[in-house]
């Protein structure tokens, strides 16, 4: 792993010095508008959504905080979930997947206005959906709270956006399909089916009884497992070897990982209903699938571990914003996935179900893994699209530490307290009022950790806007490095 001089790097990546644009620079230039659009939308939703998260957390220890109808706990917490899920995660994943697919297919983006049109529709529909939730028009089905009329519009917009990853793939200039492309293609194929079936069976032609709950968690868990996670994993499989300049430790294992992931993950959602009035064989199947997820996760963990551990790699990881965030995300992907498999065991679930442990786990997966991995991707992608270096190293450090301390603190606080809650409830020695009172210090800690994450998000969003601002210093070249 050599470290070329700064001048060499700038010369190699300065298209004007060579007289014409390199292939990579041409591809990056064609991707600029849609990817920047989705990134900015994602960053804005992230900040607003996180603020609603903090509002919800404060209400747990100061119930009279912002005591208006539109911001009751049920609504502010739902707004938080929908904004960070459909606003931040989906927009961010649109940006990263479009960029990755075109880069890996060595294809330029054509007709970039189509995904932008889809993106405008997607975000306007979300705004409508959020006002509907704030106005009390929510459905009461977790992960599908927006009124059902948004579904067809979101569906069409998703196709306009997601299709472009497929189009890029069909126009690929390469013979080999890299493992990240498999993950992204699969995600773009799986989500529309999940969304269609869930909408039909829950909101448009409701199935009766517990089938609704089963469909709900089949969708809810798979929206994470079959859409958000694969793109997060695709991003890690690209950026870790790419930035380090060394191929993945065992590419064979990564292929095994993809196919076992595809086989097991879609069964796992039923573990949300353990102990509920659904057939026991179905619960058992969900437990088996959840435990089998150890295989793809272990494969990924082994691969990332051996790719990133070498005599020189650690310095490169710590010295690169992309890798610092991505490797943090990769470590937490392993940890949160193993925790998820354990939480699906009946004996463990009997304690953790309905407690803060589950909420800690959700943030472990969605923030410590996915969000941090996506941040890493943006630190690599944006300078190449904007042709500018990030304006401030200090802001990147601040962003990393606020989010890293916030998210790990949150997971630790919620896991410890969740386990205590579960034991207290199961023992039935304390009254519900005593159990609620005992939660008070933990709720304060939760607010503090959530606030740290939110501050980190504000720093990130401000940094993105500063970098893209018209008056920011413009530098030549598609890729930029240490000055």
């Amino acid at each position, binding site marked *: 792993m050599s470290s070329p001089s700064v001048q060499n790097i700038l010369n190699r990546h300065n298209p004007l010095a060579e007289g014409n644009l390199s292939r990579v620079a041409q591809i990056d230039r064609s991707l600029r508008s849609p990817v920047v659009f989705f990134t900015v939308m994602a960053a804005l939703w992230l900040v607003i959504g996180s603020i609603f998260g903090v509002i919800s957390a404060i209400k747990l220890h100061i119930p009279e905080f912002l005591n208006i109808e539109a911001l009751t706990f049920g609504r502010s917490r739902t707004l938080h979930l929908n904004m960070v899920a459909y606003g931040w995660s989906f927009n961010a994943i649109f940006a990263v997947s479009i960029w990755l697919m075109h880069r890996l297919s060595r294809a330029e983006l054509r007709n970039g206005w189509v995904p932008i049109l889809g993106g405008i529709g997607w975000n306007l529909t979300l705004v409508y959906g959020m006002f509907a939730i704030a106005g009390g028009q929510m459905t009461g089905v977790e992960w599908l709270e927006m009124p059902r009329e948004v579904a067809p519009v979101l569906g069409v917009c998703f196709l306009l956006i997601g299709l472009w990853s497929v189009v890029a793939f069909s126009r690929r200039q390469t013979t*080999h399909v890299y493992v990240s492309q498999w993950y992204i293609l699969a995600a773009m194929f799986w989500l529309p089916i999940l969304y269609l079936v869930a909408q039909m069976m829950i909101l448009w032609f409701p199935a009766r009884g517990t089938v609704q709950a089963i469909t709900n968690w089949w969708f809810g868990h798979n929206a994470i497992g079959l859409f958000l996670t694969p793109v997060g994993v695709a991003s890690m499989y690209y950026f870790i070897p790419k930035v380090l300049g060394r191929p993945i430790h065992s*590419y064979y294992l990564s292929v095994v990982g993809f196919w076992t992931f595809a086989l097991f993950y879609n069964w796992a959602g039923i573990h949300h209903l353990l102990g509920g009035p659904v057939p026991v064989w179905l619960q058992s199947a969900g437990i088996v699938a959840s435990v089998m997820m150890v295989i793809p996760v272990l494969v990924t963990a082994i691969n990332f571990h051996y790719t990133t551990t070498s005599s020189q790699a650690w310095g490169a990881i710590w010295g*690169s*914003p992309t890798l610092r965030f991505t490797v943090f995300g990769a470590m937490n992907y392993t940890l949160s996935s193993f925790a998820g498999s354990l939480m699906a065991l009946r004996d463990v679930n009997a304690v953790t179900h309905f407690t803060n442990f589950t909420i800690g786990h959700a943030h472990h997966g969605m923030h410590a893994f996915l969000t941090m991995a996506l941040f890493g991707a943006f630190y690599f992608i944006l300078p190449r699209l904007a042709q500018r270096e990030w304006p401030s190293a200090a802001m990147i450090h601040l962003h990393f530490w606020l989010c890293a301390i916030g998210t790990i603190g949150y997971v630790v606080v919620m896991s410890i307290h969740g386990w205590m809650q579960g034991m207290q409830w199961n023992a039935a020695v304390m009254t519900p009022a005593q159990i609620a009172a005992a939660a008070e210090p933990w709720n304060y800690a939760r607010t503090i950790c959530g606030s740290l994450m939110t501050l980190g998000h504000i720093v990130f969003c401000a940094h993105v806007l500063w970098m893209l601002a018209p008056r920011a210093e413009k530098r030549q070249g*598609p*890729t930029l490095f240490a*000055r």
Partner: protein
Amino acid sequence: MSPAPAESFWDLSLLGIFLLGLVFLGSAIWALSWSRRSGQFDDLERDSRSIFDADEPEGVVQDRFPQ
């Protein structure tokens, strides 16, 4: 007694979902067999390097903190 309309609707839907499941499974099997036929598994050592090119070559760290 003939089933209520809602019930017959759900019988049909169940069939539709079952067929959708088969399409799902079939697509996975097709994708796996396609990747074998098109040589995706022939030389994994070489293919693991497909992310590198002349612009961003193997052996060169591609990202650093700005200063």
